[in-house]
């Protein structure tokens, strides 16, 4: 679809996107950081059993375990551990 109508729609979409950005931009960092902190805590809970902390919900957290693997490396670096804290998972 081309023509002035489509171009107008495009412009309109750009203005709305700019406005969204104007709203979200200044606090994006703060919010993403807060979310990352929550995720980090969640990861700690999920990994509790594997780290040697008894976890009454281990039956359920074990199920989530594989999903945490992609994040594991970045997580342990953020938590100030140079190498992976899990004996059976070596990521670096």
């Amino acid at each position, binding site marked *: 679809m081309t023509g002035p109508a489509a171009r107008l729609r495009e412009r309109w979409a750009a203005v709305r996107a*700019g406005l*969204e*950005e*104007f*709203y979200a*931009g*200044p606090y994006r*960092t703060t919010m993403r*950081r807060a979310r990352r902190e929550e995720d980090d805590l969640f990861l700690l809970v999920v990994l509790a059993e594997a780290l040697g902390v008894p976890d009454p919900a281990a039956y359920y957290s074990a199920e989530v375990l594989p999903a945490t693997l992609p994040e594991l490396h970045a997580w342990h670096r953020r938590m100030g551990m140079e190498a992976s804290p899990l004996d059976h998972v070596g990521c670096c």
Partner: protein
Amino acid sequence: MSSLWLLIVGLAMLAGGYLLYSRFLAGRVYRLDPEFTTPAHELRDGVDFVPTNKYVLWGHHFTSVAGAAPIVGPAVAVIWGWLPAFLWVTLGTVFFAGMHDLGALWASVRNRGRSMGMLSGRYIGARGRNLFLVVIYLLLLMVVAAFAVVIKNLLLSTPSAVIPAWGAIVVALVVGQMIYRWGVSLLLTTVLGVAALYGLILLGDAYPITLPDPVLGMSPATFWILTLFVYAGIASLLPVWVLLQPRDYINGVQLFVGLAILYGATLLSAPDVVAPAVNDQVPAGTPGLLPLLFVTIACGAISGFHGMVSSGTSSKQLDGEDDARFVGYFGAVGEGLLALGAIIAATAGYATLADWQAVYTAFNEGGVAAFVQGGGSIINAGLGIPASLSATILATMAVLFAATTMDTGVRLQRFVVQEIGEVLGLRVGKYLATGIVLVIAVGLTFSAGAGGDGGMRIWPLFGTTNQLLASLTLAIVAVMLMRKGRNPLPALVPLAFVFVMAFWAAILQLGTLRDSGDWLLLGIDVVIILAAVWVGLEAVLAMRDARRRPVETDEDDRRALEDVGS
């Protein structure tokens, strides 16, 4: 003389500055390169480093640097007559602020978006970073205290602004919910939010609220100040999406609305400037124009705070290096426009010279109240909005700008307190940290009397600190230019001027603060003088060293950054 001349000449100077001087700076001095890979691309992570459209980025940059300060400063400074303030705002914006803001942005972009504090580590010395922390904390502390007094004065002098000023908090809370909980589109939310705010302004104008005296055993002034700090404390602790984000956004929109109203009304009514060009009958006790003018107007002419915004957030979002000219320099021009509007409102909004003199009875009298009153009558003449309603609009706007600076300021100070705690090996929780911040800020506000009567004595000191911060940034930019074998004069001349004026003002204020027995402010002034001496020494040493080194290339930059980065 018609204020239209002020408007036309001022706009022409700012436009000339942007079209000519910023082109010279971008081409010859900073040599902005559209091909350069900016940090937003190189380190793109979607959190801090995000390439952003230059108009949107300019909007962020402008709305974070402009607020109540470019209104308060000029409105106080016109006591010396309109000409000194006018010249300092226009020439300052063109040759000082624009150069400084663009320079800070460029310096940070060339250093992977690092902040000025980090840059001082590379160009001035490791101690520079601690110096930055101290100066920034003092700056935030003073702005919070000064704005508490500004808002208190406005709420007392314009009682019709009480309902909209506090009601705006509810509007912001609802806007936050609409966007994140109810999923209403932003455009509709904006329209509804702004409409609600103006509805509150109408309501406030119909029902002005004057507090009884005493209220809860305090004078109304004391009550408002305490309430403001309680508000700032709570607001700074809430999750940002609940209150701070929608409030900042609405203020951003308001800033554009306000500028349009003020300039439109001036164009349509072209009121006469009643204030003298140079006031040779200043009220007794007014300090000399030299050097106090140059610290009374900081934001609006040159302000170190802009360097923090430039290097803290804007530099991480710059899409292409050549966008820096628009974002940095034109951001400063935007603030100059606001300051120019404040000058016109505070000098042309009165019918006769006697009326004007009746407002400016002493230094720090008049100020924002004069802006509100004068601007109100200009809007009345230009747009036909009743004078009291116009004044309510302006007062609400000024209160909102000042209040958001207060809550953000308390929040940022909390982080500094926590950081200092970490250095000392203590873990300071956010409630305790906020408590510490509030106690110090309230103490500073009341140190000048229980009604905060002398609170505006902080204002010139705030400007002094701000200029000191600007000197630090300019010193870093000058050292960078010298190391790269470029012409450092565009940075060195403003640096020398601003530094000398700020230092001189700090020394003079030692005397006035001692006479008024304001020991807390006197102590702060001493710290500022020590910091200034330190800045001066470090900068001279760094420049001597820069002249001896071989010229740095882009390749050298890359190597230096990798050393630090690892």
